[in-house]
């Protein structure tokens, strides 16, 4: 079986700096894979490479066996990869509903279909009550969920979540974890960047660890948690901080 997403020896340089160096891993259908690493490890850069904002300097990305590196972000989204942003990018002067409608149009044939799809997704992500508010005024937790809602509206097969939990209070955290699990149960594969260890350990099937742009470990949460390299990367950072 070909993996859903395959990252093959991907490197990305900015000038002389290697933000991502020779990283390879696979994500299989139906999994939740966590991508972790200290700040500046290259996680978001890797997302930008998968999503098409950056072309890899070396290496290739395959989605369902098809090479996608080099395509534009909107083409990659059409193929079935949606993403959220670490720094949330809501369409500010649009209502919550319109935000989701705009992305539902990718696969909806009529306005009616786009709106009804958007309303379903707002129910699913617990945002229905806020549908008529301008997204500018939403609190952070809701804006993070709006990012997820918008990504879901494009009906992806794979979802890239970039720190969807950062800055949430414990109540919001539980709600978001529930939503992620519901998304997985609906058959969408998830690759997630997260700093919140408890969250990542509890929801991931597998974890990939990056440090200084290189992959230093990969495995189940227990394996990764006991890996000396990983402990050093994190504790080393803590000790020098």
């Amino acid at each position, binding site marked *: 079986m070909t993996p859903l997403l395959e990252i093959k020896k991907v490197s990305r340089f900015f000038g002389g700096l290697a933000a991502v160096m020779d990283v390879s891993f696979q994500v299989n259908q139906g999994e939740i894979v966590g991508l972790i690493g200290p700040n500046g490890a290259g996680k978001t850069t890797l997302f930008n490479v998968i999503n098409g904002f950056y072309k890899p300097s070396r290496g290739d990305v395959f989605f369902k066996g098809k090479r996608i590196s080099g395509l534009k972000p*909107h083409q990659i989204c059409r193929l079935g990869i949606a993403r959220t942003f670490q720094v949330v*990018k809501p*369409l500010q002067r649009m209502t919550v509903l*319109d935000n989701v409608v*705009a992305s539902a149009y990718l696969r909806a044939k009529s306005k009616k279909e786009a709106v009804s799809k958007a309303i379903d997704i707002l129910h699913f992500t617990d945002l229905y009550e806020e549908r008529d508010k301008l997204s500018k005024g939403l609190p952070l937790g809701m804006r993070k969920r709006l990012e997820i809602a918008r990504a879901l509206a494009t009906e992806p097969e794979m979802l890239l979540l970039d720190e969807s939990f950062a800055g949430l209070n414990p109540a919001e955290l539980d709600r978001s974890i529930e939503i992620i699990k519901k998304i997985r149960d609906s058959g969408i594969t998830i690759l997630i960047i997260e700093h919140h260890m408890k969250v990542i350990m509890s929801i991931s099937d597998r974890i990939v660890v990056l440090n200084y742009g290189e992959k230093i470990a990969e495995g189940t949460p227990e394996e990764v948690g006991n890996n000396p390299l990983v402990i050093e990367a994190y504790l080393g950072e803590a000790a020098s901080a």
Partner: protein
Amino acid sequence: MKRYAPYIILLVLALLPFLGLSTYMMHIIILMIMWAVIGMAWNLLGGYCGQVSFGHAAFFGVGAYTAGIIYFKLGVSAWWGLPLSVLVVAVEGVIIGFICLRLRGPFFALATLAMGEVLRVTAENLRDFTQGTLGILIKERTWVEKIWYYYIILAIAVLSYVVVKKVIESKLGYYFVAIREDQDAAESLGINTTLYKTIALVISAVLTGLAGAFYTNYMGYIDPEVVFALHDISIITIMIVMVGGVATYWGPAVGAGIMVLLAEWIRSLPRIGTAHQTLFGILLILIIIFLPNGIVGDFSKIKRALAMRRKLDTTT
């Protein structure tokens, strides 16, 4: 009531010429409607899609010259310039879009500004084709009466209003606003931003070009200084939309009405008249500070301010 407002306004406008207005008043009203068309066109690209153009004279001028050149070179009626300008300006829009739309924000604005100027200088120097600064004179006026010109520009305005409204309420409208709010987010939501920005630009350009072709027929004389003017076309267009209300359906029409009246009024003042652009500049600054969403966009704010005044008046 609100649903019927457009029809009521249309009815009033359709009956307006029967009020027996003077030729001068008719002229002013025709200009207002023409500017409303250009404002609505600009608003589609600048207001909804967020691509602020400082070069709409490029489209107005090419529309105007399309009408002028077919009359002067081919000897056909300049009215054929209306349908033909749609074609010519659409092609121009695609080309200018291809060049300018790869730039964002202020860089796009500056590139369009340059485009307008490039076309003005080109029109001045391609003397065999455009008559250069001599301009083109339409020797036979179609009508002496203003009434037919009035109905033609009114029809163009209704067309523009309907086109803009239909576009904004469709998928295109959602995409335009998404691009305005965040181009990267829009792109990653599967929106082909380059394609949709080009669509917005071409529709906007074509409507502006129609107004230009009408202008040639109506005024009977064009030259590059007038129809490719940076301050008198490109900048005034932006002011009309800013004053009326960016990204509102009626803002450009309201802005056009106010700006045309204001221009006529200021010009008629002794001495101050020549400084009308200075006064426009001051007005723009005041609008940006106090009514950033324009008169239509900030209408509730104006109403509140007026209500407060009345309250103060009654209590004292």
